[in-house]
């Protein structure tokens, strides 16, 4: 059978220079400061397909407990697919996903959510016919919680996003795009995740709120120790709050390093960071 790593794909020229590092996991472990830390997520050699199309090829990387890790890459690189494989929405054809050393590869999405891995999907998939508050409450159904605790979580979300409080009784379908995005993030947080998978959280948010979102992510990580895997187009901002970053290119991980290092990497600057703002 053909070696999947050798299946021809169109490599973009800019990237041929970049050395492919296969064992990024051990690398992430070795990086200073995290020696003792466990890996919350260990992704090894994942292949994923949509029908005949191979979307992921031997994707491997690690997410240390308590860290923020950014996953970068161009349109169609496979970032969303990676998150969907982790949360069980897309079948992994090969490879292994471990959550604190426990094999969770291809478990059902409900089981994975119960374990505390929660995904905030791309493009705000809120329940359109439910109100803001109902949407938020649904987010907490994966955990056992008293009503008092639940309303405490609600309050927390409302302090993060005052706009949601104003619109709490409105059905989600008629919210503005940015309000829906806030709602999707809030709903994810209601489940008290151990690992939060965020797919483009800043999508459609006003610059002033984008800043707040990154602050919230940073704070959440620092205060509650929530591990965060972040997919973002706003690469500069994402790397600035992250500990590590990985770059996906046509379904493969091509680079992985500490965030500061990536921020200064010339190739990455050219491809993803641009002028920034």
């Amino acid at each position, binding site marked *: 059978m053909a070696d999947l790593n050798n299946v021809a794909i169109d490599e973009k020229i800019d990237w041929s220079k970049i050395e492919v590092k296969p064992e990024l996991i051990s690398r992430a472990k070795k990086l200073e400061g995290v020696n003792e830390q466990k890996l919350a997520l260990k992704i090894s050699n994942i292949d994923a397909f949509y029908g005949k199309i191979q979307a992921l090829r031997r994707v491997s990387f690690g997410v240390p407990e308590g860290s923020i890790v950014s996953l970068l890459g161009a349109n169609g690189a496979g970032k969303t697919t990676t998150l969907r494989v982790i949360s069980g929405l897309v079948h992994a054809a*090969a490879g292994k996903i471990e959550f604190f050393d426990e094999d969770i590869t291809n478990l059902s999405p409900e089981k994975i959510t119960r374990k505390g891995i929660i995904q905030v999907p791309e493009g705000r998939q809120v329940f359109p016919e439910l109100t803001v508050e109902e949407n938020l409450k649904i987010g907490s159904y994966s955990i056992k919680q008293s009503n008092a605790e639940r309303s405490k979580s609600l309050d927390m979300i409302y302090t993060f996003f005052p706009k949601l409080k104003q619109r709490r009784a409105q059905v989600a379908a008629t919210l503005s795009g940015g309000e829906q995005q806030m709602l999707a993030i809030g709903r994810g947080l209601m489940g008290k995740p151990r690992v939060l998978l965020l797919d483009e959280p800043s999508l459609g948010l006003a610059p002033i709120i984008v800043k707040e979102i990154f602050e919230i992510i940073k704070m959440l990580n620092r205060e509650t120790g929530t591990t965060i895997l972040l997919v973002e187009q706003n690469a500069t901002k994402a790397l600035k709050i992250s500990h590590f970053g990985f770059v996906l290119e046509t379904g493969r991980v091509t680079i992985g390093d500490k965030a500061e290092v990536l921020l200064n990497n010339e190739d990455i600057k050219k491809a993803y960071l641009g002028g920034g703002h």
Partner: protein
Amino acid sequence: MSAILVWIWLIIGVVLFLMAFIKDTPSTKKTYKLLAFLFVITLPFTATSWLSALNSALLYSILAMGLNLLLGNAGQISLGHAAFYALGAYATAILSVKAGVPILISIILGGISVSILAFIIGTPILRLKGHFLGIATLGLHIVVENIIKNELKHMFPGATVPIKYTVTSMVDSINYALREKLAYWDYVSLTSGTKPFIFNYLQDIASNIPAIAGFFITLLVLYLIVLMVRNLLKTKVGRALGGIRDSEVAARTLGVNIALYKNIAFGLSAFIAGIAGGIFAITIGTVDEASFMLTVSLYVLAMIVIGGVGTIQGSIIGATLYQLLDMKIIKTILPQKYQALALAIMGIAVILMIIFAPKGIVYMLYQFKLKIMQKKSGFVKK
């Protein structure tokens, strides 16, 4: 003898179908088309005891295609589709019996008048969405049922369409010729003591000529409607309906008059149901409300769900499988004393199918085909 022949034939049919589905390369397509054609036209001659089930499978395929156009392609529900089916049957009967319009023309006129009616009724009720539309169409069915009971029934007290207006009369001459031949052989055998070996077989056929003719007429109409729906779906109207189903707001902004096109979908699907009703009237020869009860709408809905929402193949596969299972297969397999359980078994079969192939058989087959293709190209490991 003929019972075994039927089974062999049906198995050949299924195998043929699966092969055609999986290997639809341009080079093999023609061959399979020819084989399928041969299979279908020989089918009624192998299966006289199955004819009524086969005919009703074809008829229901037409009905299902009409409803699927509305549900799968335009995204609008109707729970009272049997109403149009019934009206088509009555319209055909009235036109041919009372007004003396030739049978085939009265079927077409019946279909057209039902579709105009649906178009008009559609204007108010298609403003409703989802459950509400479901309930409104249910209400429509009840109204029509009452009209049948209180008005139309008096026009056909015996509920039967006289033979001269049915298919039976069309094949009279063939029937007569065959019977004459058989009688002659029978007479000759008195002296020679031998009958041609196909005598019994031909006798069987002769007694089923109207049903066989019904088979071919229904098949022809089904074929024409498949062509019509297929062309419709790949051109302007079909795409506009798909647009309404997937995003009303975008379709509107791009110039699709939503209200008009929903009406068109409703009208078209009623036209198809009306034609099916007309076929029913001239092949079965009775029009009474018992044949068009609310449950008919629900069966058709089940057929679409089993076969595959939004696909032509889905309508036909769903209807055929359902009717054959319901009218023949379960009853043949089940020992005599358990016959009463047939309906329950049918229910369980439907539930199982919905559990294991929730998107319908067509979708399941596509998945299966994809897997085979992946295996061939060496993609999937393990």
